[in-house]
């Protein structure tokens, strides 16, 4: 008994030691492995695909299929690298006997060993992966001059073409056959009647490391079902290729199952503003990750448990406005995503997430990027600014929005916000903090219909607080830096109640729709100490020192540009123009000078208020001269340009 007791203690001590060492290595290494098997060639070679920063020559694996262990010494194989992926061919063809071709199911357990110490376990059931309907590139094990891939054909009369993807589709030469296989597709234009897997080899031009495959049916159309798919079973789905969906209204990937993780592995799903990249409606525990979604829509509706992270949502001018939807969802986390809108010239791009009727939603660590590919002008931004935004609609509850950042290529004109719709029902229990979204034009961080909402430690551009279809009640707004801060008496709205705004750095405040001296009827219990508002500043340079209309004829209107550079922290600009009579052989009344700004007529000496936003820009407006029937000759006079701010009835300043 004593001997047995000693042995038991030794064994126990030994296991504890091993486990402690193993546990220390698990988090760093196993989490990055993300191993999976590729069944592109179930009748030939199975590929083990994983990620690792380790020297794979020291890695061993144990693949267990249906209880049968197959030791894999990875150092015995030549790995093929695809970006961060490591592909290991497993030539144990007996494994394919466990692959069910009818159900596309393969149950396995994968144990990884590092330096012959157990450090990572991975197991799973690899069931029907519809994404693999699309032919995959399964090469690099030939050499770097040729690529091979296989296709699965179910007897349809499909033709195929091979393209190298280098940003554009470029046709390459078909090389002929697959010399090592008995089943060879020698006529690549007709697969009629051929059922099963076929292997094709083609030339990979020097310098290209990726390939795309396009099928065409007998009519020449591309059957997108080969690239798109329905997901009908739970599981982890890896997208192994880029997708371009050019069919109006088509949903490319439709998730029809609970418990689906859709991992694009960095690949792009590209489409159009009138079709959908990924759609799920009525299924729970849906995850979208590592995807680049370009110019097409993600739509997840009626779900419990939604995770959207690590994606890039991209819209350029070709896509225009792209609106994604997360609707009627509970337990939503949207994080580590990039929303990117790139406008080319005056062709606007917008990428927007509409989050509607959600409960327990957390939006954090997202990056909003907007920029214009051409030279920026004030007019470009006011009319066609790129926009990246998240807008809440309808009834949102328990919303946490934090640590999101908006950047742009043009200071002070960022167009990225996370805001609430003014036309919606109501929102409650909102915590909004540590966000950097200095939007100053086009878009506004709206606090509307908000009940029990707390904003703090944010840097924001435009902030509008107003009551919409329901009241805005109990809003705490403190320790924020705000450029333009607008309190709106919403004409058809209800009350702003219990607003506590304090300790904010606010550059300007505007009361909109206020009649001077008359305050909103329903504006109750508002605490807004104004001691922290910055002093107004106004810097103006009139770049045009003189305007010579040159030779003009009576009865005509001539235009010459006048350019003014304005920099100010105010939004309520006026420009007044006054002119002395033009003295000459006779007199041209100053009323015959005409000017417009932004289509607004300027008359003398009356003024206008053409701007409602902060501005830091060069403003060019046409100064017009109408010549009445006066005696010919040379006339001269002076035009006085006055810019004022912080003074009008409608745009009061605190």
């Amino acid at each position, binding site marked *: 008994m004593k001997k047995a007791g000693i042995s038991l203690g030794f064994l126990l001590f030994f296991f504890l030691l091993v486990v402690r060492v193993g546990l220390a290595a698990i988090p760093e290494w196993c989490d990055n492995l993300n191993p999976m098997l590729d069944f592109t060639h179930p009748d030939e070679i199975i590929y083990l695909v994983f990620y690792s920063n380790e020297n794979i020559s020291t890695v061993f694996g144990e693949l267990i299929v249906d209880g049968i262990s197959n030791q894999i010494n990875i150092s015995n194989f030549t790995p093929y690298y695809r970006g961060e992926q490591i592909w290991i061919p497993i030539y144990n063809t007996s494994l394919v006997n466990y692959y069910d071709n009818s159900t596309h199911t393969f149950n396995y357990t994968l144990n990884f060993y590092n330096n012959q110490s157990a450090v990572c376990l991975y197991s799973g059931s690899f069931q029907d992966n519809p994404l693999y309907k699309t032919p995959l590139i399964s090469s690099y094990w030939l050499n770097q001059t040729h690529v091979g891939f296989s296709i699965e054909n179910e007897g349809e009369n499909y033709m195929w073409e091979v393209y190298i993807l280098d940003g554009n589709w470029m046709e390459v030469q078909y090389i002929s056959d697959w010399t090592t296989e008995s089943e060879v597709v020698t006529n690549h234009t007709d697969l009629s009647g051929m059922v099963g897997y076929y292997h094709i080899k083609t030339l990979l031009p020097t310098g290209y490391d990726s390939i795309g495959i396009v099928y065409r049916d007998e009519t020449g159309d591309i059957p997108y079902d080969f690239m798109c798919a329905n997901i009908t079973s739970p599981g982890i789905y890896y997208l192994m290729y880029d997708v371009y969906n050019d069919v109006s209204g088509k949903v490319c990937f439709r998730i029809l199952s609970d418990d689906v993780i859709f991992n694009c592995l960095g690949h792009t799903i590209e489409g159009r503003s009138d079709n959908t990249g990924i759609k799920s409606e009525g299924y729970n525990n849906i995850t979208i990750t590592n995807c680049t979604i370009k110019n097409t829509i993600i739509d997840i509706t009626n779900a419990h448990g939604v995770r959207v992270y690590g994606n890039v949502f991209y819209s350029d001018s070709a896509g225009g406005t792209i609106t994604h939807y997360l609707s009627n969802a509970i337990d939503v986390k949207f994080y580590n995503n990039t929303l990117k809108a790139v406008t080319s010239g005056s062709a606007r791009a917008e990428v927007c997430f509409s989050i509607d009727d959600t409960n327990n939603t957390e939006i954090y660590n997202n990056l909003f990027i907007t920029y214009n590919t051409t030279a920026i002008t004030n007019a470009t931004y006011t009319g066609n600014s790129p926009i990246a935004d998240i807008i809440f609609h309808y009834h949102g509850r328990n919303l946490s929005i934090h640590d999101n950042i908006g950047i742009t290529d043009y200071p002070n004109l960022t167009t990225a916000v996370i805001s609430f719709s003014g036309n919606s029902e109501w929102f409650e229990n909102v915590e909004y903090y540590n966000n950097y979204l200095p939007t100053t034009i086009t878009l506004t961080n709206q606090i509307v219909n908000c009940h029990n909402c707390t904003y703090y430690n944010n840097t924001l551009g435009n902030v509008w607080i107003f009551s919409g279809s329901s009241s805005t009640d109990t809003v705490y707004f403190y320790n924020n830096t705000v450029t333009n801060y607008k309190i709106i008496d919403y004409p058809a709205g209800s009350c702003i109640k219990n607003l506590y705004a304090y300790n904010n750095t606010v550059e300007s405040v505007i*009361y909109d729709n206020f009649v*001077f*001296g008359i*305050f909103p*009827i329903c*504006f*109750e*219990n*508002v605490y*807004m*100490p*104004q001691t922290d508002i910055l002093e*107004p*500043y*106004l*810097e*103006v340079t*009139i770049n*045009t*020192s*003189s*305007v*010579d*209309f*040159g*030779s*003009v*004829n*009576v009865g005509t209107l*001539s235009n010459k540009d*006048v350019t003014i550079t304005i920099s*100010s922290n*105010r939004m309520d600009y006026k420009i007044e123009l006054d002119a002395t009579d*033009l003295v000459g052989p*006779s007199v*041209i009344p100053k009323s015959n*000078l005409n000017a417009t700004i932004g289509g607004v007529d300027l008359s003398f000496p009356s003024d206008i208020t053409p701007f409602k936003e902060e501005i830091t820009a060069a403003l060019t407006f046409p100064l017009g*001269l109408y*010549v009445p*029937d*006066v*005696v*010919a*000759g*040379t*006339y*001269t*006079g*002076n*035009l*006085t*340009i*006055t*810019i*004022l*701010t*912080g*003074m009008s009835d409608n745009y009061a*300043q*605190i």
Partner: protein
Amino acid sequence: MNVKHLLFTLPIIIGLLTIPVAYSDTVTVSADVQSYLTVTFNYNTVDFGTVVTGSTGNHPSPDYTTGVYNVSIDTNTNYTVSAYESGGFVNNGLTLYLAVSSDPSIDGTFYSLGTSSTTIYTSSLTTAFEGTEYHQYKLDVGDIPAGSYSTTVTITYSAV
């Protein structure tokens, strides 16, 4: 407005007293207005009818005091009027006189026309002008053989 509203809006009223910020500068504006002159003749013939030789009384053209010989003028510049005749009169002992007047009932200053151009009128406008000017003709007839005589008169308006 109830008391509650007054209490909560008071701080805002105080704040609204901020003085506006303004900037002002002057730009020189200039223009060179071009001239125009439009003249339309409303007649092309003057017929003195039958006249007596040797007269020195300056036969007036018929009805010139009623304004039948006139021109329409539209201009924003001063101008001169000059005229000459082709010699059909002066070479045959007839002398033609022409005057310009703003009122047909008041004679202008008559100038005899030769075969060389003579300035017979200079305007002095201070504003653009659009209106009618009247031409007045008189004729001296020497002791010349009876018969029909004719000549061509050229009248030129020139912007100054």
